[in-house]
C-alpha cells in the first residue's frame, strides 16, 4: 500500500521536472475537463477488471501471462459470432465466457495437477492464443462495425450509467464482489493461505488443487468479461496487436497495489489504486505531450522506485509490528521487554 502513495509522489516528482510541471497539468483545463475525466475513468474500468482477475492468481502465487492474447482470441471469435454467424448476443456472450473458463480450467489443471509453473503454462498461452486468433481471422482486422442487435454490449463498453462510464461502474461492482470474496469469504482465505504456504494449507485439509484451479478459472472468467468490453471499446480487432501487453499492465497494477509475486499478499483496494495510478500516469504522459514512446519508461521507472521504497519502508513497519506484538506478551514470551 505504501507503494501506491509513493508511486503518486514519484509520478508527481517526475512530472514536476518535466517542461510544463504537474501543477500546470492539474490546472490544464483539458485534464479537469469532463471529457478527459470520463476517458480516464473509462480506461480505469476497462483495465481494472482484468487487473483484479490477475490479482486472484497472483495471490495464490501464480500469474497469468495469457490475458492479452486471450483478448485477441476471444475478440476475434466474438466478432465472428456476432457478425457473419449472426448468433443472438446473449448466446454469443455465453459462448465467450464458457470458452474463457475452459481456457482457465486448462491453465489451472496444468498448474495444480501437472505441477507446471504458471509462468510457463501461461507464456505458452500467450504465444498460442494470439497465433490462433491470427489464424482464425487470416490475420485480417475484424470488427463489429455499426452492426445492430447488441446495443446493450456496446453501451456497457462505451456508454455511461449515471453520468459515469459504464466500464467503471462494472469495475466497481467487480471490486465490491471480489472484495468480499477475497477478504471475507472462506474461499478468499483459502487463496491467501495457499499463496503463503501451499503445503501447510494442504495439511490443514484444504483441497489445494481445486482451489488453485478455480482461481485460474475465475481469472479467465473475468478476463472473458474484459475481452467483451475491450472488443466493443475498440470496435475493431487487429489480431496481431489487440490487447498486446495488457497482461503486463495488470501485473503492474497488482504489484503497485501491494501484491507480491511470491503470493499471499495483496488487496482489492490496492489493485484498484494500482490500476488508477497506472492509467493516471498514461493520461498525464499523454496530456503532457511527452513522447508516447516514453510512456513505458515513465511507468517502469515509477513502479521500480515505488516498489523499492515500499521494500525499505515495509521492513521498518514489520519491525514496528513485531515490537507491538511483544509489548503485550507475558514475561517469558518477551523476557527482556519489561526491563
Amino acid at each position, binding site marked *: 500500500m505504501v507503494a501506491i502513495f509513493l508511486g503518486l509522489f514519484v509520478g508527481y516528482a517526475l512530472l514536476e521536472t518535466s517542461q510544463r510541471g504537474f501543477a500546470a497539468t492539474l490546472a490544464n483545463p483539458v485534464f479537469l475537463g469532463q471529457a478527459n475525466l470520463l476517458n480516464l475513468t473509462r480506461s480505469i474500468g476497462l483495465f481494472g477488471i482484468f487487473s483484479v482477475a490477475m490479482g486472484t492468481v497472483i495471490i495464490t502465487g501464480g500469474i497469468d501471462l495469457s490475458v492479452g492474447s486471450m483478448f485477441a482470441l476471444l475478440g476475434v471469435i466474438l466478432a465472428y459470432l456476432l457478425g457473419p454467424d449472426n448468433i443472438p448476443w446473449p448466446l454469443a456472450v455465453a459462448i465467450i465466457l464458457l470458452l474463457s473458463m475452459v481456457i482457465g480450467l486448462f491453465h489451472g489443471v496444468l498448474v495444480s495437477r501437472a505441477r507446471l509453473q504458471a509462468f510457463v503454462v501461461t507464456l505458452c498461452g500467450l504465444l498460442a492464443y494470439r497465433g490462433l486468433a491470427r489464424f482464425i481471422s487470416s490475420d485480417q482486422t475484424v470488427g463489429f462495425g455499426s452492426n445492430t442487435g447488441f446495443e446493450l454490449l456496446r453501451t456497457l463498453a462505451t456508454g455511461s450509467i449515471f453520468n459515469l462510464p459504464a466500464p467503471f461502474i462494472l469495475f466497481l461492482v467487480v471490486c465490491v464482489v471480489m472484495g468480499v470474496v477475497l477478504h471475507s469469504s472462506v474461499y478468499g*482465505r483459502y487463496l491467501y493461505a495457499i499463496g503463503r*504456504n501451499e503445503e501447510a494449507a494442504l*495439511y490443514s485439509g484444504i483441497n489445494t488443487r481445486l482451489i488453485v484451479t478455480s482461481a485460474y478459472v475465475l481469472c479467465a472468467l473475468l478476463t472473458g468479461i474484459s475481452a467483451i468490453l475491450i472488443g466493443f471499446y475498440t470496435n475493431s480487432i487487429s489480431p496481431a496487436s489487440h490487447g498486446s501487453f495488457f497482461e503486463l499492465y495488470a501485473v503492474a497494477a497488482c504489484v503497485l497495489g501491494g501484491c507480491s509475486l511470491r503470493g499471499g499478499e495483496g488487496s482489492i483496494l490496492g489493485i484498484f489504486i494500482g490500476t488508477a495510478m497506472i492509467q493516471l500516469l498514461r493520461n498525464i504522459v499523454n496530456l503532457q505531450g511527452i513522447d508516447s514512446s516514453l510512456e513505458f519508461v515513465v511507468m517502469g521507472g515509477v513502479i521500480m522506485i515505488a516498489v523499492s521504497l515500499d521494500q525499505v519502508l515495509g521492513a521498518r513497519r514489520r519491525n514496528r509490528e513485531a515490537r507491538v*506484538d511483544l509489548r503485550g*506478551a507475558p514475561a517469558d514470551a518477551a523476557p527482556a521487554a519489561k526491563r
Partner: protein
Amino acid sequence: MPEPILELQRISKRFPGVVALSDVSLSVGAGEVVALIGENGAGKSTLMKILGGVYQADEGMIRVDGREVQIRNVADAQKLGVSLIHQELNNLDNLDIGGNIFLGREPLSGGFLCLVDRKKIAEQSRGYLEKVGLNLPPWTSLSSLSIAQQQLVEIAKALSTNARIIVMDEPTSSLTLTETNRLFQLIAELKSAGVSVIYISHRLMEVNACADRVVGLRDGKNSGQLAKSEINHDSMVRLMVGRNLDLKRTETRLGDPRNRIEFRDLVSPFFPSHSITLTIRQGEILGLAGLVGAGRSELAMTVFGITRPLGGEIIIDGKSIQVHSPRDAIAHGIYLVPEDRRKNGLIISMALRENVTLPDLWRYANFGVISYASELRTAEEQLKKLSIKTASCETLAKNLSGGNQQKLVLAKWLSLRPKLIIFDEPTRGVDVGSKAEIYRLMRNLADSGVFILMISSDMEEVLGVSDRIAVMREGALMGVLEAKDFSEEAVMWLAVAPVQTNKDSAASRHTTLKGS
C-alpha cells in the same frame, strides 16, 4: 580449565523491542568442548551469531588469545578461526563436495579468466574429507549425501578455514544414533588436535557424553556453569529452567483393547514391499520408534492422506475407511501434528486466529462469508485452554516461540473433534518447559479417549511417555513392546534389527551415552 583462547565478555544485544542478551560472558579454552544449553529464546543462537559475525554486539568485548577483536562480518570470524555450523545446514546441494568446502574461496587458475581450479579443489578437499572420515570423492554431488554426511562436509569446510573454534548448533537433530556417535568421535579427535568446540543442544544426554564444561543461559543471561564432574541430567535442567523438572513416567495406561483403531496391511508408496498392521488402543499413547528414515513419518503421511496408500485399510469404530487426502482424514477425525511445523503445521505469516480456524473454516461462515467474531471466540478459547503466550490473536504465528508454535498446531486440531492425533516429533526444537506441557496435553487427550500415536526419535521421550512402543525399520514394523519390556536396548535392538547388531553397535554405545 586451560588458558582461554576465546573470551566473550559482558555481551549485550538488543533487538527492536527485546533484549536478547544482557551481560553474557563465555570463555573457551584450547581443545575444550563447552556445551551451551538453555531453553528456546534463551539467547544461545544470538550469542553464537555474534561470535560468527552475523550480528554485532551492542555492548561487550570479544577477546581471542587475550587480544580484543572486532568481528564485523563472517569473513572476520573466519580469519580469527571461528566457524559456525548452523542448525539448518547452509550447504548448496547443487554443488559437489569440493565446491562447498571451498565456496567463496575457490582457488583460481587461468589468470584473468578467473576459472575455478577444480583439480586443486579436489586435491585439497580430499585431505579434509579424510580428517572428518568421509570417504567420498570430492566431486560427489551434495544432493546425493545424507544429512549426516552433509554435516561432515560442513565440518570439513570449517577445518579448511583453519578453524580453531567450531560452533555446532543442534548438530544431531537429524542424525541417527550411529551418526551421532561418529560425530562424538570426531569431536574427540578435534579436541585432541587442539580445536575447541562450542556445542549447542537440547539433548542433555548428548551434552553429558561429550562436554567438558556446561554453560547455561536463561532469558538472555548467564544462569551458571557446571564443571565436568557436576554434569548430570538434573543439574543441567536446573540451569535451563531454574527448577527441577520431573519427566519420569507415571503409571502405564493399558488402554482399552476393545476400542481401537487399526491399520490393516497398510502399504505406503515409499516402501511398497512392506505392509504395516498396527493397533492403537483407546486411552494409551502408542510410541512409534525407529531410526531416521525408518518410514515412520511416511506411515503418518499415508494415514493422514498426504500420499495415497497402495493397499490396506484403516479401521475406526469397526468401520473401514478410505483416506485419499488430508481432507478425508480430517473428516474422519484423524489429525497430524507434523514434524516440520513451520513448513507444514502452520502458515507462519498468518495470524494465530487464522491458523486456528483454517481446518474447519466453513464452521465460522454464513453463506461463505467468515464471521470474524466467531473466529475470534474460538481462537481466544483455544489459546487460553492451551496457555499459548501471546499479545493477541492477531499476532503472526512466526513471532511465537517454538513451544508456543507447537501448541498452536495442536490448537488447530483441538477446536475440532479429534479421534486420532498423530504427533510427529512433537517436542523437536521445543524448550524443556513447553515439553512437559506438551506431554501433559498428550496424556490428557489420551485419558479423554483420543487415540494418540507419537513418533519420536528421542529415546528419553519414547520410553518416558509411551504406554506401548512400536518400532519400525526400513518401512517395516519390527515389533511392539509392552511397558514391562521397555528398555533402550529392546527398542534399539528392534530398530537396527538382528542382522545389523554385530557390525553396528549403536545400541550398546547409546546405552553408555545416557549416563544417569
